[in-house]
């Protein structure tokens, strides 16, 4: 009843008579629910316990709609609250849903890969959920549930059959698109006025309030309005409506101003449609990338940021300790908060519910100096409720990911840093979530690489693929072959020493990021030739004196043996990248010795009835022998050119991972399919070449690409999806250096980062837009030069920029 009183008294001040009537109705509905709608043992919403923290009217609206939802759901639903149970059971380890899902109609999912990606992983580590928790989650699941554990976030993924069987109702599947809306409504076979979309409903509501001078008001009777709202309402929509309510309020304010100013047209509404990007502040406190299961309710707890403590697990280790230290410092610094100008943070009072501590738990002890690896566990569970917050994970990597998420949940509201009551269960969709950076076309100093690693960790990327050397320069300092960098680097300052590299690897490991070095051969190696000309084929008559690496000389393989052994000692990751792309055969074929060799070994193919020398086969020969002289205990990744070569020479598929990079838009799908059909594992880079800049908004394009999208073509998705290790963003540096790297990368790379981490169901950029804009602004507040990528807009807050250094200070 406290809430009712609160609502009444608070809103009295603001609302007109019509609103009050509405409100009373809601109040009645709500009290009815309190009396009988819930189970007796259900914990009450936290809002009851907060006398001093004033709820924002918007939040109240949100609550109100929620309640309305609950109520009308009762009438719609045949077996009450079954849905949430089923959903939770799936998390808790029942196989029932998995079976149901297999019967799913893929076409209902818009031709995309079915939602569940890693359900099995979730099964193995989740403890069974207690009844208590279950009932709580029932409630939350109506608030907001994203990710594949909900079976889809935007399209209606669960088909009619399934719905009938378990009694799922529309409102429980988060769905806003009209497509899924109609689908859902057909399923529940409840006739209603479909043609009111949410916008219209909100506007209608606004109209009731404002356009009193309009006799033909189209407002629906309240009850039917609620119904029409809730029918198309998933948890996501509840939020959206709250947003609309906010707009309504703003419009109203404007109207008032209008009335007082406009002497010529007093009856008009001032609605100016300005083409701006979404307000980033609409998305405050939302995480990026979206967790697999994200349950939140707008019950706020104040966060005591000044004294905030993160308590490491009892048996901790350095990676965890450092992350705890880092995030404690970060949270205390409050840089994430957007505090409007002129406002200051208030100290939480003793009457408020205050969160001061985040407890970190590890389910197994960790060792110092552990390194992230290909099978690392990044899953974590985070729950923030009331006075306690707990983050639990299996391994340090999960802790690091969870702390990042936690830091993203805190936001500014009404003078306080606050956090919503939130329960998150999260794990990555793909184990390989990479970013490739080319430091050969332009040298990028270590300090900037470290910045990039920082931002990667904000986006939960976990592989730094370091394209160290290329035609243009050789900045890697080799002990065995010092001339490589001495003569091949741009200058003696623009190098990476072993100390630099070890330092960087450690820095990356602190952020749960693997470092995979790439030494590309046999092509892209001209700078190697500066120090060791004997390594390359020499056809000096050509435009370039040097061609690719000489594939038939013993020196090559001796050199590579020593070279890779050194790389092996320096880079601890289980995988190395051997390149193998874009080999120009011209120089090879020009050399008599090589031509004879090829003829002798039958490296020929027939074209137009002619027997021609086949460079691919010679490349295969090189690859085969290179792999033989390389350390055996590492996995190798190679660019897709190596695939055909590997097949010809029977390179084992356990040994080689194929990195698909050609066919930027959709042609890559055929390559992926081909690679995977032959049993090779693949990492996809093709759609995410961020160095290809273009005018306008392009993160949406990256968001629409999915590493699994080819699976529906003809392959059995379940059989082959695990062959896709993940995806990788590439930044080639022909036109990139320190001046523009950060702005080119971010927030554009954040878009694929969500694709790699979050559920496959996250496939509509429109629904991610506000969150994306907020994430971009979060990054700029953290000091990252993240460019605007959603059109005209503003991150609010001040950007710290120095004046030109030569400026006279005294003018």
């Amino acid at each position, binding site marked *: 009843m406290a809430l009712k009183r609160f609502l009444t008294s608070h809103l009295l001040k603001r609302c007109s008579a019509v609103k009050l009537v509405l409100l009373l109705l809601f109040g009645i509905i709500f009290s009815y629910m309190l009396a009988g709608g819930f189970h007796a043992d259900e914990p009450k919403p936290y809002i009851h316990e907060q006398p001093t923290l004033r709820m924002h009217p918007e939040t109240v609206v949100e609550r109100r709609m929620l309640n309305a939802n609950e109520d009308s759901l009762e009438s719609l639903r045949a077996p009450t609250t079954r849905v949430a149970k089923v959903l939770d059971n799936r998390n808790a380890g029942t196989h029932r849903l998995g079976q149901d899902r297999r019967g799913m109609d893929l076409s209902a999912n818009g031709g995309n890969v079915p939602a569940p990606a890693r359900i099995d992983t979730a099964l193995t580590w989740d403890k069974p959920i207690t009844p208590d928790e279950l009932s709580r989650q029932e409630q939350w699941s109506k608030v907001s549930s994203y990710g594949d554990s909900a079976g889809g976030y935007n399209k209606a993924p669960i088909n009619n059959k399934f719905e009938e069987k378990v009694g799922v109702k529309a409102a429980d599947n988060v769905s806003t698109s009209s497509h899924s809306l109609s689908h859902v409504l057909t399923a529940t076979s409840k006739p209603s006025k479909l043609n009111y979309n949410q916008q219209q409903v909100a506007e209608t509501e606004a109209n009731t309030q404002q356009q009193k001078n309009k006799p033909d008001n189209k407002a629906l009777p309240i009850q039917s309005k609620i119904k029409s709202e809730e029918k198309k309402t998933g948890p996501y929509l509840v939020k959206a409506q709250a947003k609309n309510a906010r707009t309504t309020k703003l419009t109203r304010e404007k109207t008032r101003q*209008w009335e007082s100013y406009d002497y010529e047209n007093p009856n008009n509404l001032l609605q100016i449609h300005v083409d701006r990007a979404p307000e980033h502040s609409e998305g405050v406190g939302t995480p990026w990338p979206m967790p697999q299961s994200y349950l939140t309710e707008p019950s706020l707890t104040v966060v005591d940021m000044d004294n905030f403590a993160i308590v490491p697990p009892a048996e901790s280790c350095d990676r965890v300790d450092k992350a705890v230290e880092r995030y404690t410092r970060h949270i205390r610094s409050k840089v994430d908060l957007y505090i409007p100008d002129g406002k200051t943070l208030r100290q939480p009072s003793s009457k408020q519910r205050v969160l001061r501590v985040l407890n970190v738990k590890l389910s197994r002890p960790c060792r110092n100096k552990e390194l992230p690896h290909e099978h690392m566990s990044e899953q974590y569970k985070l729950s923030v409720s009331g006075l306690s917050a707990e983050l639990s994970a299996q391994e340090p990597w999960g802790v690091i990911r969870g702390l990042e998420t936690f830091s993203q949940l805190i936001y500014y509201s009404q003078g306080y840093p606050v956090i919503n009551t939130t329960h998150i269960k999260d794990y990555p969709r793909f184990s390989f979530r990479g970013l490739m950076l080319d430091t050969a076309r332009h040298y990028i100093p270590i300090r900037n690489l470290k910045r990039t690693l920082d931002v990667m960790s904000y986006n939960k990327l976990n592989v730094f693929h370091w394209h160290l050397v290329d035609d243009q320069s050789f900045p890697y300092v080799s002990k065995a072959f010092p001339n490589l960098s001495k003569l091949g680097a741009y200058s003696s*300052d623009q190098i990476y020493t072993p100390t630099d590299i070890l330092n960087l690897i450690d820095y990356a490991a602190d952020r749960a990021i693997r470092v995979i070095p790439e030494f590309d051969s046999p092509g892209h190696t001209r700078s190697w030739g500066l120090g060791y000309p004997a390594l390359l084929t020499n056809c000096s008559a050509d435009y370039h004196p040097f061609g690719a690496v000489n594939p038939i000389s013993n020196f090559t393989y001796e050199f590579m043996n020593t070279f890779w052994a050194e790389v092996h000692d320096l880079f601890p990751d289980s995988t190395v990248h051997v390149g193998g792309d874009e080999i120009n055969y011209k120089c090879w074929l020009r050399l008599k010795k090589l031509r004879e060799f090829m003829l002798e070994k039958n490296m020929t193919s027939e074209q137009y009835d002619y027997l021609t020398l086949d460079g691919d086969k010679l490349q295969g020969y090189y690859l085969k022998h290179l792999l033989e002289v390389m350390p055996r205990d590492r996995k190798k990744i190679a660019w897709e050119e190596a695939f055909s070569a590997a097949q010809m020479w029977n390179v084992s598929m356990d040994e080689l991972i194929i990195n698909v990079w050609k066919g930027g838009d959709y042609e890559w799908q055929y390559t992926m399919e081909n690679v995977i059909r032959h049993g090779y594992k693949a990492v996809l880079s093709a759609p995410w070449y961020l160095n290809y800049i273009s005018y306008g908004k392009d993160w949406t394009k990256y968001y629409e690409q999915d590493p699994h999208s080819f699976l529906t073509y003809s392959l059995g998705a379940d059989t082959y999806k695990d062959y896709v290790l993940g995806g990788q963003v590439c930044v080639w540096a022909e036109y990139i250096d320190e001046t523009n790297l*950060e702005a080119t990368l971010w927030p554009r790379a954040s878009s694929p980062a969500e694709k790699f981490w979050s559920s496959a169901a996250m496939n509509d950029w429109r629904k991610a837009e506000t969150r994306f804009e907020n994430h971009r602004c979060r990054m700029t507040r953290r*000091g990252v030069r993240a460019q605007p990528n959603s059109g005209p807009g503003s991150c609010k807050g001040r950007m710290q920029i120095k004046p030109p250094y030569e400026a006279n200070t005294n003018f």
Partner: protein
Amino acid sequence: MTMNVLATFSLLLASALCNNFSGNIKIFPPDQPPIRDGLPLPLPRTWIKSDKVFAVLGGQFLFHATGHMCADLGKAFDRYHKMIFNTFPEDLRKSSTSSGKYGYHQNKHSAESNITSLEVNVNQICDGTPQPALGMSETYKLQISEGSAMLSADTLWGALRGLETFSQLVYEAPSDSPGIWMVNETVIEDTPRFQHRGFLLDTSRHYLEKNIILQFVSALAMSKFNVLHWHIVDDQSFPYRSMKFPDLSKKGAYDPDTHIYDQQDIDEVIEFSRQRGIRVIAEFDTPGHTQSWGFGQPGLLTPCYGSDGKPDGTYGPIDPTKNSSYVFLEQLFSEVHQVFPDQYVHLGGDEVSFDCWKSNPDINAAMVKLGIKAGDYAGLESYYISRLTDIVSSIGSKYIVWQEPLDNGVKLANDTVVNIWKTTPQPALEMSKVTAAGYKAISSSCWYLNRIAYGENWQSYYMCDPQDFNGTDTQKALVMGGEGCMWGEWVDGTNVMSRTWPRASVVAERLWSPATATDLDDMKERLEGHRCRMIKRGLDANPIDPSYCRYEKQSPPPLW
């Protein structure tokens, strides 16, 4: 004199350029770093350079005014001393361990005589706060010979351009010879080809912090631009804080406290620019592109009507039929006239949609009263523009408009300056049409730098000549110059510098240097040198090619 200069120009240029470069530098990592230092951009009208290299001793070096001296010149001396000799703020200076493997020491020893001062002779008085203006003299002469360096110019502005060139000719010896700067024996006589060399910066689509604008102006000065075209407001936001109409920014800015330019900010930008010989021309675009004005000035915009004949709640361009609109505009533009000292103001006038006017019965009724033919919305626009230009003229401003009013047949006063921006119809045709009608023209069509693409695209900017159209000499003389544009939809403080520079410098060269300067390879060398110089001066400029610059951008340390 001028004829003489022109006659010898090509010979001298050729001889000067041949000496500069060593070998093939891009295909292969160089044995020697390419010598791109000491190459001026934009290319001077005449530039004679020999192989003789003199050392410039930073510790002792002085600028020495032999003609008129004034505060602005003194500040410029300070500035350029800092820019030439303090390559970085000291705390950021990179510690270098280079062993001098590139053999620069030979050059060092070949320095025959040291330069210890630059004598600057300004012929005209430059006291007070002289305002740069259209047609100001920017001519200068620079002579660097054994033991002496002399710069002479008629005006302060010429001296500023000459100082910039001098600062570009002096380059730092490699790191094994710290404190040594070098300069080749040089004679330069230089004067700009066009009077109006501008760059548009849009602060409405995204707010740009004052310091970014200052950095931008700093970069403009490096490329000898002389106009900052400040597209200060637009549909999306109104960051200009008006004294008379504070509500405009209070309600129309992204953030009424942080995302605005108050008078102090604007004064600072204007003064910063003035000291660098750059005019600040503000654009208050009307009657379209004004959505954000409506928040703070109710009644200004035209209410649009839906198909049901009722106002649909949306708004269109400024209502041209209401007298109150003009009262407001007169007050606003007289304030603008006071705040921005330049004699020109940009009135916009682009992309006016007639749909809203068409839908509104009041507008249509008023048109009848005004004697405008029914359905002739171009006539209505014409009415608006002519009333606005009358107002602005009576205030005492001259004005520039975008090309649409002319395209729509709006009657414009003879002294109107028309800014061509569209790519269809062909800019050349449009230039021909505009100048044939006797209007002065500024060309922007080829230089929309916000429209980015992968790879190198500065070549097209270089090859685009504003006078390249069919027309008489009189017509060509009406071309005042051109402007590059960086519209703000996709840029803000994070990327506006790196996205604009160094490509904008290519535009600068087209507008400053003779039309005969069209050698792309030469341009590329100097452009890379220029970009590296910008980095040396702490300004972000994109790489244009795989290459390296010995001055690294000093990015901030890791975030955490």
